[in-house]
């Protein structure tokens, strides 16, 4: 079985469509979405529709929580707050109902899926360094946890002795004696200096993790964002992938 894991689409329809097109050539069995389908971008409704159509598992991200009004926007940067308000205004009642059915975590055999971290998933913590990874390893179930949230493709490994190491996201074959936290990167707003949409494939039989980078029509997305009044910073960062 081969499944794709996509995350952090952020209402970027062109990026999502490009990823779905790329998936058609990958002979995958299913797609799982780790959340943040909405927020930042200007096509939340269509992105939600595509995610519902194509993804067998749909998880909550913090931007879904903003959309449902479950967490305060107060701590967001002014740009992010403006964007969250834009999203709330533009979501339909059907969109809200769709989001209200997203799950917080999912478990498949020895695979754990979550948006931010298995440690307090609703706190939306960032796993960027060893200390936070340790907390995540302490709470994760199974041997591989796929997550998103930071938009940075990264891999943390934890040996049987408890030694934690991390690397930039790359294709690899998980070792039987280690556990892994695999950040699948972002479809709609990559931040690792590569503007191409990012997602990951897992081949459960061959035990391989493969990252895919997919070019999409960034300019088209940016024009739509500008026309919709999305803050300039969010538009410009797509060009450079930051």
């Amino acid at each position, binding site marked *: 079985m081969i499944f794709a894991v996509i995350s952090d689409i952020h209402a970027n329809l062109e990026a999502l469509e490009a990823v779905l097109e790329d998936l058609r050539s990958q002979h995958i069995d299913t797609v799982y979405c780790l959340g943040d389908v909405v927020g930042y971008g200007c096509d939340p409704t269509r992105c939600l529709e595509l995610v519902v159509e194509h993804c067998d598992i749909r998880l909550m991200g913090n931007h879904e929580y903003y959309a449902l*009004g479950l967490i305060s926007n107060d701590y967001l940067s002014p740009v992010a707050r403006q964007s969250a308000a834009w999203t709330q205004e533009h979501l339909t009642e059907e969109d809200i*109902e769709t989001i209200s*059915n997203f799950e917080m975590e999912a478990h498949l055999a020895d695979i754990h899926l979550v948006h931010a971290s298995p440690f307090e998933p609703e706190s939306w913590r960032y796993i960027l360094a060893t200390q936070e990874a340790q907390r995540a390893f302490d709470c994760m179930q199974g041997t591989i946890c796929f997550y998103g949230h930071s938009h940075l493709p990264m891999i943390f490994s934890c040996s049987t002795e408890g030694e934690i190491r991390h690397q930039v996201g790359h294709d690899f074959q998980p070792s039987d004696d280690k556990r892994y936290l695999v950040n699948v990167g972002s479809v709609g707003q990559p931040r690792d200096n590569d503007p191409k949409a990012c997602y990951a494939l897992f081949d459960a039989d061959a035990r391989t993790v493969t990252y895919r980078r997919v070019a999409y029509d960034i300019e088209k997305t940016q024009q739509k964002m500008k026309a919709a009044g999305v803050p300039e910073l969010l538009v410009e960062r797509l060009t450079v992938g930051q």
Partner: protein
Amino acid sequence: MPEIIVKYEDKVIERIVTEKKRISIGRTNDNDIVLENRGVSRKHAMIEFNDNAAVIMDNESLNGTFVNNRKVGEDVLRDQDVVTIGKYSLVYNCNASGPADDGSDMDGTMVLNTKKQKKMLEADKAERELVAKYGGSVLLGEENSEFAEYALEREVTTIGKAKFVHVKARGFMLSGIQAKITREPEGYALVNLGRKGKTRVNGEPIERSWLKNGDLVTVGKSTFKFVEGEAQ
């Protein structure tokens, strides 16, 4: 026949349909309508019924008798007038269609069921204690509820069938997060997020509704009573 609807803080305690010419109201058990409250005098007031007219007479009570918020000594009651005595209000209905409840005694007067009233007051007291315990508003599980009490201590409390919500609800076709209760400066608001028609207040489907003390919140098959605490 005239009817008196007795309410305690807006909750209907009893409906009394009477053929008597005169009924007494007061704190002690020898009254026709017993109102157990410190603000009610032992022999607080009387109502006399004469040929389609009703007259209320205050019996020099300590805290007074009010008709439609106006203090009265003696006053003619008109249909739907509200008499306030202590924390109770008595609504005068000049022509009830008939006995509204069981419990009529031989002369046709509905005797106020003090046991029932006491039970209600005890429940009320218990709710107040709960509110004091949690320092704020509370949801009480009434039907199909996982727990008996949920403190509404967060700014947002989620209700639904997902594992990660604060208040679990049961029911067919219910959303993971079916509804939320938000704590706002004006009070608590219940907002439907999931499938339409699955979130109700006192039986009525809502999209958004302010909650009042005693409201019954139903999400799917689960019902909770909202008990309002002090504003935080």
